[in-house]
Each structure stands twice: as C-alpha cells, then as structure tokens.
C-alpha cells in the first residue's frame, strides 16, 4: 500500500517498486537496475525483462533529458480539470531511457520544441503526493 501517493492523482496503490517514493522524498529520482545483467529500467520495474531476475538495485538518475514531444491539455479527466491547461511531455534521459512527465508551468511554452534540454526534478502535489516533472 502507499503508492497512490505517486503522481498528481494516483490510481495504483500496491506495487513492488514502492521504494521510489522514499527516493522522491529525499529529492532524488531513481531507476531500477538488474543485479544479474545490469539492464536499467525507468520507470522502475521490479522484474528484469531480459533475464527474468527480480533481484534489483536502485540507481539515482541525474535527470538530464531531451524533450521528444509534448502537448498542452485543455480538456481533462474530472479530477485534473481544475488544473487545466497543463503541459505533458515525453523526454529521453541521458541513459537512453524515456520518461513521460508533466512539464513545469515555469517553462515558457513558446520555447518548447523537440530536442529542448530539460531536467527531471522532484515535484510535490497536493496533500503528500510526490512525483517528478520536467523543468
């Protein structure tokens, strides 16, 4: 239990990758790495796709990323509607893995374009919700 704290509004409460929340609380964003083959996963996975091992370790990411694409959402699910319009983006991290995340409203949306360098940082939601966004 507890993972519903992830995101602006979480849907899933039970998962093996709960430790992500502890990293977010410390201001860090972490990926999982297979202890056997070394493959790294973000978003984190509890189970390695390649060797089917489930012994993982956590590695902290530097957050450097390049924007791949984005949108500005005007029409949203009811729980998110009060926050509209808001930006969502897809970015590639330095390790080649990708992240889907909100884009901070502090980013000038006129400057947004594929290839723009952004940084993935921890963000605080309402209540004790935690997530990450691109800024």
């Amino acid at each position, binding site marked *: 239990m507890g993972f519903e704290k*992830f*995101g*602006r*509004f*979480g*849907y*899933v409460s039970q*998962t093996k990758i709960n430790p992500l929340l502890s990293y977010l609380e410390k201001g860090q964003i972490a990926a999982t790495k297979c202890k056997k083959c070394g493959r790294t996963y*973000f*978003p984190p996975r509890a189970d390695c796709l390649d060797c089917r091992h489930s012994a993982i370790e956590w590695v902290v990411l530097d957050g450097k990323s390049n924007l*791949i*694409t*984005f*949108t*500005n*959402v*005007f*029409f*949203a*699910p*009811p*729980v*998110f*509607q009060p*926050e509209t*319009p*808001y930006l*969502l983006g*897809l970015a590639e991290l330095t390790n080649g*893995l*990708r*992240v*889907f*995340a*909100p884009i901070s409203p502090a980013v000038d949306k006129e400057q947004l*374009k*594929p290839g723009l360098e952004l940084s993935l940082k921890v963000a605080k939601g309402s209540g004790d919700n935690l*997530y990450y966004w691109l800024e």
Partner: protein
Amino acid sequence: MGRIGIIGVGHTKFGKRNDASLRELAFEAYSSALDDADIVSSRIDGSVVCSATHYDKQRSPAGVVAEYLGLNPQPTFNVEAACASSAVGLRTAWALITSGLHDVMAVVGVQKMTELSSEEIQELMGRAGDVMWESPFGTTMPAYYAMYATAHMAKYGTTEEQMALVTVKNRKYGSKNPNAMFQKPITADEVLKSRPVSAPLKLFDCCANADGAACLIIANAEKAKKLTDRPVWIAGLGLASSPMSLAGRKGPLTSFDVTKNAAKAAYQMAGVGPNDVDVAEVHDSFSITEILNYEDLGFAKPGSGTRLLEKGETELGGKIPVNTDGGLIAKGHPVGATGASQLFALTKQLRNEAGSAQVDGAKIGLAQNIGGIGMYSAVTILKA
C-alpha cells in the same frame, strides 16, 4: 488454409442513440446482416461479441447480446481490444472457422457510450494509458495523439491547416452516409476555430463518442459459396502490439510502428502491396492519425501524408480513396463497433453497392483499426 468469406453485413445508425439499449443496437445490426446474407439465425453456429466492456453497464455483455439475438446455446464470448475490438473479433472468428470448430459465425461489434455521463466518460478517458506511470499526470486520449501531432509537425512541418483537411474530407463523405452521426460538411475555418482539446488538436480534429453496432457474418469457403453468390473474401489479417506506455516506445513518435507491423503481416498474407489497394478505411480517431496512417500503411512516404490530402489523392476519384463513408470523424466512434463498421463499408465497396461513395471497379480493400492509444493495430485486406 481455406478461404473465409464475408456473406452478410449490417450497420445501425451511429450517434446519440437515446432510443436503444446495447442489446437492441446489436440486434439492429445482426438482423440486417442476416437479411443481407439472406439466411436464418439457426445457420449461425457461434458469435463473437466485440466491445470495450468498460463502457458497458452490463457486465460480460456477450451473455445478454447472444440471448437477445437468439444465439443460445451456440458458443459466445467477448473480445476486447479497445477501439480495435471488432477487427480482433474478426481475426478470432477467422481462426475458429479455419480450425474447423465453426462454419458460420457472427462478429457483432457494439458499443453504448452515451448511457454514461460525460464525467464518467472523461474519467474512463483518463485511464486509457498506463495507469501506473502516465494516468497519474492527467493524460487523455487526445493528449497522446496530440503528442504524435506535435512530433510530426516539428519533424516534417505538418500544419494545423493540413490536419483540418482530414476533417473537411471525412465530414463531406459523412454527409452522404445516412448512418453517420454528423450529417453536415464542415469548413477548414470551422475546424481551425474550434476550441482547443489538447494542443495542437482542437474539437473538430477529434472523433466523437457514439452509440452503435455493426455486424459481419462470415463463413468457410464451402458454406460461403453455397449461401451467397457475392462473397467478399478475407485475404489478409495483420495484428500487432506496441508498448502501452508512451515512454516504452521507440523513435521520434512521428509514426506508429504497431501499424507498420500489422500492415506488413496483412500485405504478406494477401500477397499485395499498398499500390494494389483500391479503397481504404483507416482509423481517423483524430485528424493527425489519418495522416500518420497513410504513411504507416505505405500509401505515402514518411512525412508526405499531407501531400496526398492536398492533391486530393485520398478523395473519390483519387489514387487511393480513404474513408469514403466519413470515417470515425463523421460517423462517430462507438468503440467496439468501429472495426466492423469499416469492414461493412469495404464489403459494400467490393460488391459495388456503395452508392454515391462507390470507388469504380474496386477489387481490393484495406481496413486499419487502432486500439486505444496505439497498443494494438489491426490491418484487414478484403478481395472481391
């Protein structure tokens, strides 16, 4: 492999069908398909009911649909692949007949969406993507496709004006299709001035939720030839999957690998290529999707889908007429019925019964049906 033929097709009026329940919509389409095939219900030895069941108040709707259609005690079950449910249902029925387990089956695509409040629909829409890693940020169906549009615009210079041409074309053909939800043409200016949904997509770049049903009766070659003198043959079936999460997908997001993979399989099975296709139905859930589909299906080179539109090549009389029944944008999108609706239109085309939408001498038709945010894509090729 023996050939499998479509021997009867049926289609309801799509739109806000306040007059009918899920089972009644299914009956309308099924009954007109039986009339079209000129057979009685007892000939059907199994049914595949295709819907995105999370929209239905009825749990496991195949149960009540089969009962209402009079298809007990024959086998029945649901097939769910979001917006591609009935294309996948056809694939399932094809395999069941090819295996010899069945001879004649009904594939019933049906969806009742307006029973839900717009709040409920919006809530469901918010869970269309990966609920663990993407929905918690406020995703929507249009948001995902808008991100493909942004990428395509940045890489190829595609404009909102060019995207509007898809809606203008499809609404024009919808105005000639009595089953379409939207019966009026629209101008590019009206599309461009419609309110933003998820930039760069605006209201009229998007298809609408709808109620409706479409039904296909299919049979093995022996029965098909015995029961009808105008079977349309299923020549190619391609289906592929892609990661559901956007973060799990590769490349610049200017195309759908899932459609390219499904198309490759369908072309190979049918022994044809994109240049052989006379008429096509593609999944225009959003205007940008139709442009990407042209490219992913091989009708245009990457980045040049918009040129087909500007030159009128996907209009009636063009090189490859697309969505001459109005597509999802004009017909409305009753999720589970859409794939069967596309195949209804192609069957009419290949029988030379498409009226004012008829493509002269059409012999090979292609339907492409995307599921959800692009985790499934089905390509079906029919031959006269």
